[in-house]
């Protein structure tokens, strides 16, 4: 066990139903208290849905594991009230250096875009992230119950509900649940218990990941090596985490012996060669991580939803694992709420698979491209990769071609069946299906952020003043109308610019802050129908 972090031990408490030997039917059961499962419980709780999380362990992630969290998941956690400690603790790097053999070929500065509440990304050990999420779950003690040391040993979906057998230190008991969200990782036992496929191994690889405590100052930069002398034929990545801990990822390839590679006497000389003989460090944690690129055919199986790595797995380049898993939940939560409340047909839940499998394919594509650059699969592919690195040293144009992992960006649901396609002209970087970009605004005299007022329910964002009645005559789906210039002030003009807002422009925004439709005029019928479409209901006149 590493020592830089004191691992919390969460109390195992025997559940009432096991104690009283009484089977209970729950609304939602979540399997796995990792970043995705904990986020699911918080998302449901914020909407007033009770859930139970089952986890076979009773602490947070052992080792730093997922260490890079991108803007979109931070925005989602901000909606759920827990991004602040993550951003406070996390570190960002802006300077990156690319090395080849024993030479630095170039360095870059990320220069993130201004005027977003959340940073482009932070580096943070997964154990801190999970600790903050567990703490936040504690604020919803009437809605979230985390059952530690509770291992699911069988799982059956029998149509209207699912039946689980759960093993605890007190034995085995049964739980029933209307809905299940499976977040138990790439080696998902639940998926195997349901006999479901996990296909599409495009490639597989292993990484040795090591946390190193630096005893002296070391620059907070991201260093990426192609074919370094201390690890020939492979790549190495070094980046900073909070508290003088640096994370080092050695690509191992598939033909190595992971147990041999993991031995400290083999890791330490390699680190010494990499960091320089005079750098004093301590090896904190080392682990071997293996992956394949694959996903489930369908993320929804009746009342059971798969989210995060249990549904899709990608290479670590670009930090797309936890980051995309959190967006799965953001997509599922509001839809499940509408269905549970009887405000949308169950078929709305199929759009969870439609939109998130599309995102998974996008992530697999991006991560496959990075992998093809880092580990070329043919002679000619290697020739182009090497030529790119040759040119990158002296010519700026080749540097963006160097692909050592692209920052995880949210996938726009461009062709989603929930979208109402543009019928008017817009000139902006965003389109229907995109997540809303943030912007600084003023509300009631306070400087706040747009995304902070775009959650909970559908929002209709109106640019300029609208005369007349703007109510939609909609009884079951709740929505807010926000008029820019009246309800909020866009003093800096950034909101108007990012959304190409003109007098009369209207955006319809889903509870997950994705754009469902937009128009140049406020047309009650069009907006009404767009809400119906975005909630899986039949639009009027289009049945």
């Amino acid at each position, binding site marked *: 066990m590493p020592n830089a972090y004191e691992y919390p031990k969460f109390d195992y408490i025997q559940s009432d139903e096991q104690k009283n030997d009484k089977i209970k039917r729950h609304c939602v059961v979540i399997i796995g208290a990792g970043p995705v499962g904990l986020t699911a419980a918080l998302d449901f709780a914020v909407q007033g849905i009770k859930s139970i999380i089952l986890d076979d362990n009773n602490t947070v992630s052992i080792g730093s594991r997922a260490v890079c969290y991108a803007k979109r998941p931070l925005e989602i956690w901000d909606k759920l009230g827990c991004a602040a400690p993550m951003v406070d603790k996390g570190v960002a790097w802006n300077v990156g250096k690319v090395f080849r053999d024993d030479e630095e070929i170039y360095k870059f500065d990320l220069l993130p875009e201004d005027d977003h509440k959340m940073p482009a990304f932070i580096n943070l050990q997964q154990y801190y992230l999970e600790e903050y999420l567990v703490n936040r779950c504690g604020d919803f003690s009437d809605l979230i119950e985390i059952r530690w040391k509770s291992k699911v040993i069988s799982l059956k979906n029998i149509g209207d509900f699912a039946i689980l057998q759960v093993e605890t230190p007190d034995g085995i008991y049964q739980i029933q649940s209307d809905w299940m969200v499976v977040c138990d990782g790439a080696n998902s036992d639940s998926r195997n218990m349901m006999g479901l496929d996990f296909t599409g191994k495009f490639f597989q690889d292993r990484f040795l990941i090591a946390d190193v405590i630096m005893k002296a100052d070391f620059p907070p930069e991201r260093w990426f090596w192609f074919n370094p002398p201390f690890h020939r034929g492979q790549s190495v990545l070094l980046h900073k985490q909070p508290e003088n801990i640096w994370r080092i990822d050695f690509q191992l390839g598939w033909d190595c012996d992971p147990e041999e590679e993991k031995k400290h006497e083999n890791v330490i000389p390699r680190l010494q060669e990499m960091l320089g003989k005079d750098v004093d460090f301590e090896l904190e944690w080392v682990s071997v991580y293996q992956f394949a690129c694959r996903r489930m055919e369908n993320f929804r199986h009746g009342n059971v939803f798969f989210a995060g790595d249990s549904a899709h797995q990608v290479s670590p380049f670009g930090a797309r694992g936890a980051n995309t898993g959190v967006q799965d939940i953001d997509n599922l939560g509001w839809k499940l709420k509408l269905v549970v409340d009887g405000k949308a047909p169950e078929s709305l839940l199929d759009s969870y698979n439609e939109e998130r499998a599309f995102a998974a394919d996008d992530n697999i594509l991006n991560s496959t491209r990075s992998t093809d650059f880092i580990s070329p699969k043919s002679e000619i592919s290697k020739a182009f990769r090497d030529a790119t690195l040759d040119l990158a040293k002296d010519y700026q*144009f080749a540097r963006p071609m160097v692909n050592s992992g692209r920052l995880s960006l949210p996938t726009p649901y461009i062709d989603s069946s929930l979208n109402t396609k543009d019928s008017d002209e817009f000139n902006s970087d965003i389109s229907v299906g995109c997540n809303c970009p943030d912007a600084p605004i003023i509300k009631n005299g306070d400087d706040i952020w747009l995304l902070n007022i775009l959650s909970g329910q559908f929002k209709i964002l109106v640019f300029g003043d609208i005369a007349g009645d703007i109510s939609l005559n909609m009884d079951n789906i709740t929505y807010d109308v926000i008029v820019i210039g009246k309800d909020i002030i866009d003093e800096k003009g950034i909101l108007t610019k990012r959304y190409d807002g003109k007098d009369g422009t209207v955006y319809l925004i889903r509870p997950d802050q994705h754009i469902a439709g937009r128009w140049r005029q406020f047309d009650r019928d069009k907006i009404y129908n767009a809400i119906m479409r975005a909630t899986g209901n039949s639009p009027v006149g289009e049945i």
Partner: protein
Amino acid sequence: MPLNTNANIARIDDFYQELIDMHRDLSEAQSMNVNAKLILLLANHIGDNDILHDAIKIAKDDL
């Protein structure tokens, strides 16, 4: 603007000779390297994904 497939280089014989001379005394691996660099330099200069797409398509068409 589509990919220009009409003759467009003023001193065509000079260019062709320079292209062949570029590879003189190179090993196959070196030739592959300079070809790759040349493609990347020219592709960046063209800069238009549609034109590059058309060129890639024509290059592979008759295989």
